[in-house]
């Protein structure tokens, strides 16, 4: 893997969404998947921010790859990531004040995302501009979709609502929006995807290195 020349851009995008899905398959960058998925709005906003940062970091690193000295590459990657995260952080603080109060800390912590650094190191630093962009888009969309799936179930079951609009009448399962519910939801969804993988595709299930 990681030889983008041999794969089309579309394959790269699909790879990020399914085969190497950051959350469900690789099991890295888990913090926001549980912290901000108690409502669909926050989850989506967080997913979009990560998509933006991932794509911008990938294309920046890819464009600069010939100028970066391999010996000091990690600090430079961190600087590039921190720069783009600051950009999205200030943008959200200015334009989405309400949501920013809840997810602001987690937006700033995108800097410490293992997945973004990992893609910069293992893909963008070795590949051309366009494949790197596709890889970033695929990884970002994979993350966004996973966030949407988790927060969809949590908000629907926990509040009986979607995007804040009530959908189901009756008493909701309060536990799903409690902190503990995030762990349950994620564990069950991950188990479910493993089951699909084992049952229909003959896989072994994601091992998840952590």
């Amino acid at each position, binding site marked *: 893997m990681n030889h983008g020349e041999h794969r089309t851009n579309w394959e790269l995008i699909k790879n990020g969404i399914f085969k190497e899905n950051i959350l469900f398959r690789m099991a890295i960058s888990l*913090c926001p998947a549980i912290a901000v998925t108690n409502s669909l709005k926050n989850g989506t906003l967080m997913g979009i921010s990560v998509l933006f940062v991932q794509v911008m970091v990938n294309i920046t690193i890819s464009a600069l790859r010939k100028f970066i000295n391999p010996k000091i590459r990690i600090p430079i990657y961190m600087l590039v990531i921190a720069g783009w995260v*600051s950009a999205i952080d200030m943008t959200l603080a200015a334009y989405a004040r309400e949501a920013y109060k809840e997810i602001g800390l987690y937006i700033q912590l995108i800097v410490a995302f293992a997945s973004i650094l990992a893609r910069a190191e293992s893909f963008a630093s070795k590949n051309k501009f366009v494949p790197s962009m596709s890889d970033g888009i695929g990884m970002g969309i994979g993350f966004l979709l996973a966030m949407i799936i988790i927060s969809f179930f949590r908000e629907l079951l926990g509040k009986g609502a979607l995007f804040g609009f009530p959908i189901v009448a009756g008493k909701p399962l309060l536990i799903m929006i409690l902190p503990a519910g995030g762990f349950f939801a994620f*564990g*069950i969804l991950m188990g479910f995807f493993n089951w699909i993988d084992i049952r229909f595709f003959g896989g072994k299930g994601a091992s998840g290195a952590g």
Partner: protein
Amino acid sequence: MDFNKLLELVISASLINNFVFTRFLGLCIFFGVSKKMETSVGMSITFTSVMVISAALSWLIFFYIMVPLDITFLKIVIFIGTIAALVQSADTIMKKVSPVMYHKLGIYLALITTNCIILAVPLINAGEGYTFIESLAFGLGSGLGFALALIIMASIREKLELAEVPRPFRGLPIAFIVAGLIALAFTGFSGLITL
């Protein structure tokens, strides 16, 4: 300095607002290292010390360099740089002092840089405007809370190795369910101190 206030900060950061179970930070490391008791104890010690030192260092940088120069908007970049340098030195010291431990924890030490809690503590300290001593107390409480979470989790997962878990849930999914159960127990602490 009011001692009660400090104690309150330590307890609140370690139990009531436990970083792993109520703020969901540092999960990658939490699930990565908690497979064995031995590694999680080593990780806890390293982690707590790095946490306290980085809280102190970043407080000094924030209030004596960044605030006077009016560059607080660069806090993400500067904090991550400080922490990366600190972790690198911790790595070197550990290699000299305890090579055996280094052999076991070396890979996770590298991971500390990309750990959210280590970065979150300076950011929260700066955001809340804590004093120097309060920042230290907050860092210590957060470190202890993380250590507690790691050790509880490791002792459960060691037992879980022997259990008959349905195949799709083996490994991480069941670890998440266990973490959820512990998190439920931790919500019981929420009434401990009314801040």
